[in-house]
């Protein structure tokens, strides 16, 4: 019995395969270069655009000082008091008697 598949291949012929690795490698290389170039161009454009925008003058502005939680609580407490007062008005009789009586 002849087992041919175990034999080492000694002869190699050029052009045996349909794929051309050299050509595809070039394509990949060109694409990579194009991508790098586009990334750089976009980065530069993005930087110019960002640099154009004026810087918000927040120097010397402290978030804690600008937005005080206590102020909010104070206003909300005021409305809460009003709500309580409304309930009192609703549950108590009118302090003024009907003038037509």
């Amino acid at each position, binding site marked *: 019995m002849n087992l041919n598949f175990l034999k080492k291949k000694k002869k190699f012929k050029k052009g045996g395969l349909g794929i051309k690795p050299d050509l595809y490698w070039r394509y990949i290389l060109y694409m990579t270069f194009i991508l790098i170039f586009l990334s750089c161009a976009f980065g530069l454009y993005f930087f110019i655009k960002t640099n154009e925008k004026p*810087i*918000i*003058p*927040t*120097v*010397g*502005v*402290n*978030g*804690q000082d*600008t*937005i005080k*939680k206590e102020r*909010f*609580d104070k*206003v*909300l407490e005021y*409305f809460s008091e*009003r*709500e309580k*007062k*409304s309930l009192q*008005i*609703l549950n108590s*009789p*009118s302090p*003024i*008697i*009907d*003038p*037509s*009586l």
Partner: protein
Amino acid sequence: MSQLAQEKWQTEAISRENAKSLINSVKIIEPQKALLETHFVQSSNVVPFLDTIEKITKDVGATTEVVSVDVAKDNPALIVEMNASGSFETIYKLIMLLENSPYNLEFVSVNLKNSDTSVGKSPQWTATFQIKLLSFINQ
């Protein structure tokens, strides 16, 4: 030149830090902000305000009818004209409750009239209000 660039960089770094601090502060007060916003009426949605008026009138037992809702020309305010009827007590309570409503209101005019004076019946009053909603955001 280098010193100038460094100073500019430092200023920007401080600005960034402050902006971050500001964003954090806003996040902290987010629930309070949402609650506070309920006391303001946006021009795009005046329904909650009208619902509040309706609820108040139901609570006191009066009957009301909103005649007109207009945006004031001179300043950002909403002018509501409405008619109410009921006993003197209910009308009085209605006025008091409107004054104490969750919104900032100003009474432009109040016209009270005793409409029914028949003997044996409890006197009926009608009131015509013109109220100005000051906590109004016209967008």
